[in-house]
């Protein structure tokens, strides 16, 4: 399941729903991204997440479908927030549940790696020196590369 929303999410409730009643789940791997109060050596007051409505949902759905094709998942979830967020706020949740832990871990890492390079979100950080668009990180592109050749249509 995928969701793009301004509201915060209840991490415990989301994870409980994800595996509830499914006795085939042996492992649940989860990643939560949070807003830090520092970016490099600069203090951050808040950030605004812009996205491309329509394409965002399309890409997230495709990333999730790709994960389900690659690993035997019992359940998966991507929630990404948009709008204004402050330090300590939750930005993103990705979760993958499988019979075995390695599949859950790998799928979870894949989901966030692909999301970070393919889903059309942009961060605008507010610091003492004004607002600044965050630059994409080479390490994110490198992280995505480990999942080998993307298929047509999901390529950046």
């Amino acid at each position: 399941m995928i969701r793009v929303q301004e509201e915060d999410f209840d991490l415990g409730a989301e994870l409980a729903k994800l595996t509830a009643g499914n006795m085939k789940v042996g492992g649940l791997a989860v990643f939560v991204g949070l807003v830090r109060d520092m970016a490099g050596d600069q203090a951050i007051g808040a950030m605004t997440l812009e996205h491309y409505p329509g394409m965002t949902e399309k890409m997230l759905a495709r990333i999730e479908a790709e994960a389900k094709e690659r690993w035997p998942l019992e359940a998966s979830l991507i929630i990404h927030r948009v709008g204004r967020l402050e330090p300590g706020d939750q930005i993103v949740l990705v979760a993958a549940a499988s019979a075995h832990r390695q599949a859950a871990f790998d799928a979870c890492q894949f989901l966030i790696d692909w999301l970070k390079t393919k889903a059309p979100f942009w961060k605008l950080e507010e610091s003492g020196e004004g607002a600044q668009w965050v630059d994409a990180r080479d390490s994110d592109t490198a992280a995505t590369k480990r999942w080998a050749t993307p298929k047509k249509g999901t390529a950046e």
Partner: protein
Amino acid sequence: MKLLYFAWLKTKTGVAEEDLTPPPEVTTVAELLTWLRGRGPGHAEALADLTALKVAVNQEYAHPDDPVRPGDEIALFPPVTGG
């Protein structure tokens, strides 16, 4: 043709969205970008560095030689930074 600009491309062009009718000889993403750079200094600056630019045609990532057609939704944006 609907053009969408996101993040700093929106700031530099000064527009989030515009409806344009390029001349008929504009048939690819690359040709469209060249034509858009001629629309004014904001567009020229925003589209100066093609390596820092991503293009989506009808919400799918596109390459410079992919076709563009009347009625398409073309989005221009920097590399993504979500997550």
